[in-house]
């Protein structure tokens, strides 16, 4: 069973954050640069939200005079769902599906230690799936002869 902790060990624990007062333009630029789909939003060191591609796509059209100079806190999601390193990747899959989200910040005793995405989950499950089923099949094969 793969845990979040294992996933972070594989992918790294880089977290990219942005200030709630930064512009949407700066947020998009950082996401493009780091090739990611979401940023944790902070206000003087405290986590205050998450800003994702979905927030941008859904909310840009709700403003009459939308501009990329608007601040992140105007479009971010304030309720931050997170996971802990001891949680299983399977549990995270369930959270992502139920809550319709693609990113989960990882908190360890109140400290932000990483971020996992739906892409990370699929990638790790794909390799795990192949190994596990292949092992079992080899086992069956060996003992059936």
């Amino acid at each position, binding site marked *: 069973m793969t845990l979040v902790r294992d996933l972070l060990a594989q992918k790294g624990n880089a977290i990219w954050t942005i200030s709630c007062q930064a512009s949407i333009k700066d947020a998009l630029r950082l996401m493009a640069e780091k090739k990611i789909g979401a940023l944790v939003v902070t206000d003087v060191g405290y986590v205050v939200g998450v800003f994702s591609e*979905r927030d941008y796509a859904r909310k840009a059209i709700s403003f009459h005079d939308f501009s990329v100079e608007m601040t992140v806190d105007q479009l971010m999601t304030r309720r931050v769902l997170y996971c802990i390193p001891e949680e299983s990747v399977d549990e995270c899959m369930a959270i992502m599906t139920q809550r319709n989200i693609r990113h989960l910040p990882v908190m360890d005793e109140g400290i932000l230690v990483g971020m996992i995405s739906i892409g990370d989950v699929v990638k790790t499950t794909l390799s795990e799936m192949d190994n596990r089923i292949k092992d079992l*099949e080899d086992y*069956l094969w060996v*003992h059936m002869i």
Partner: protein
Amino acid sequence: MANVQDILNSKGQNVYAVSLDDSIESALKLMAEKGIGAVVVMNGKTISGIFSERDFARKTLTIDGFNLNLPVQNVMSTPVFFVHPDQTMEDCMALMTDKRIRHIPVMEEGKLTGVISIRDVIKWLIADRSFEIQELERFVSSKPHVGLV
């Protein structure tokens, strides 16, 4: 292993599409309305591209004079990677991971019959994978002379 058609049978074969000259704003509105992350872009009956939330986020900064009234043609992605209905969900996972995409149109004899999203993949994984491994384990442990450590 479930194939793409099985998933389309349970989720429905709705395909949401826009035309090349529809505005970015109208595409985003359709996506919001349907709760989806990408739309297929059509030129008459032919697929021309795909427009996703990622395209919107990335190309906002790279297109000169970007605004929501621009035609979606200016920001869509090409080429469009697709799968056939008889391919497996594992094929979809591999394609999504390799190409870093979250939506794959399904084509049958040149006709667009549905779209598989990364969310469909996760839902299927939750439902199916544990079942498959459980079945194998149950089979193995039912043999008296064979046991799993």
